């Protein structure tokens, strides 16, 4: 499979076109807007957290296929995870999309591994990571908008 096909796998195109958990969350305990000034991508992440567990997670906004698919897959995977688990997945995911294919990480990350191909495209790593940085800031209750720049 070419590097480009690795990047734009069917699952990514599908989640990019039909993002899951798309919308606002009225009872969110945390929310945050993330912005990539380079390409104009803008995502808001909503999290409802109870007893250190992500009960519900949604997002809205607009962006390229990579950033929207990454956000969509993130919301699917993190539902029901504890704070500690979220942090561990964040670290694994960050390493995968910056450093590239890694069997151990891909095994741990499950369907998120579909984004491993991003590492071949340094200009696109920020797209894949935007939702994740925004989530991290949301759960830390940081002020302001997250920017990838």
């Amino acid at each position, binding site marked *: 499979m*070419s*590097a*480009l096909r690795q*990047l*734009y796998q069917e699952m990514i*195109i599908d989640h*990019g*076109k039909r993002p899951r958990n798309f919308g606002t969350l009225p009872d969110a305990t945390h929310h945050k807007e993330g912005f990539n*000034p*380079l*390409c*104009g*991508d*803008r995502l808001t992440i909503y999290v409802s957290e109870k007893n250190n567990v992500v009960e519900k997670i949604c997002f809205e906004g*607009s*962006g*390229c*296929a*990579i950033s929207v698919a990454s956000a969509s897959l993130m919301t699917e995977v993190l539902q029901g995870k504890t704070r500690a688990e979220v942090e561990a997945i964040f670290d694994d995911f960050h390493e995968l999309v910056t450093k590239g294919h890694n069997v151990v990480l891909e095994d741990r990350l499950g369907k998120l591994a579909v984004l491993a191909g991003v590492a071949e*495209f340094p*200009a*696109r790593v920020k*797209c894949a990571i935007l939702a994740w940085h925004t989530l991290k800031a949301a759960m830390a209750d940081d002020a302001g908008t997250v920017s990838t720049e």
Partner: protein
Amino acid sequence: MNHNVDVLRKDFPLLAQTARGKPLVYLDNSATSQKPQCVIDALQHYYSHDNANIHRGVYELSERATKEYEDVRVLVQQFINAKSADEIIFVRGATEAINLVAASYGRTNIKAQDEIMISAMEHHSNIVPWQILCEQTGAVLKVIPITDEGEMDLDAYQKLFSSRTKLLAFAHASNALGTINPAKEMIRIAHSHNVPVLLDGAQAFPHMPVDVQDLECDFYVLSSHKAYGPTGLGVLYGKSELLNAMPPYQSGGDMIESVSFEKTTYNKLPYKFEAGTPHIAGVIGFGAAIHYMQKIGMQQIALHEQELLSYATKKLSAIPDLRIIGTAKNKVGVISFVLKGIHPHDIGTILDDQGIAVRVGHHCAMPVMQRFNVPATVRASFGLYNNVSDIDALCEGLNEVKRLFA
């Protein structure tokens, strides 16, 4: 000379390479142009044979470097038809040229409540220096609206003048839309209100003949690297009566006449505005670029790029779901567009995979993106070496984008 693009392409060594294993299709000339061998040779020759500091050495080498540097000043003067070579100031780029005028002319002549007029199609570099000047002086920024076609709204423009309007700055050609503005007519109107005009020529200068006396602009700024010359160099043209009355922008060596701890007097034009050792090699390389463009002829370059523009506009318009942003009657070879349902960033990556270099994003013109309600666009921009095959490759590439996202 006829515009034989196959022959001209051979002058640009970079174009012969492959990108992602495919022949490089370079369509990002609004960002920067590639360099002909004669420019690369001029840089190498300068550093190999003529390198010395200018305006100070009594030895032969310095005299030679000084002469080459000053010869380019005269060349630029003639090329844009300035009245005097003293009106040509070498700076780091078009951005620095605008900053120079904002800081020096602006802070001397603009007061609280004064109005500075720009347009809605400006590059950030022709917005932010004026915003900063407004913050410093209490002046107000007024913005000329643009039409849905991306043309200057000339009715609104005329109504925007007031007795407080003190300066107008706008793009000769728009980097995001391609629009060539009716500069001469707009300048005539501004002058009828006694308002001086800065024309941002970064996107116009490489693509058409420019005559600053015919335009009657008060300031004209341009960039070397967008016109086949080296990076890190630009030109500020200013009418000498304005430049003479302006205080220095930066201070240091070369810009002084005499220095004592009690009193420093400044050098005459153009040196007053060229503090420190300038980009000597860059200026000499830019001279080679101007000679190169002159040899082909600016009319010829303009004609060639207009042919490409109309071919590309026709071919791109035939692609379903493709919308061109910026459909002005007069354009340089720039086509901004969006494809329904596919983000420009994804388009850029998929085109790159086919060796096609285009710009995706907001093109340092976020207000233009807001005006057309798009987060970003894809932009293909042409230079003298682009050909019909480049445009065919772009259209093929876009078909591949659509296949992948189908």
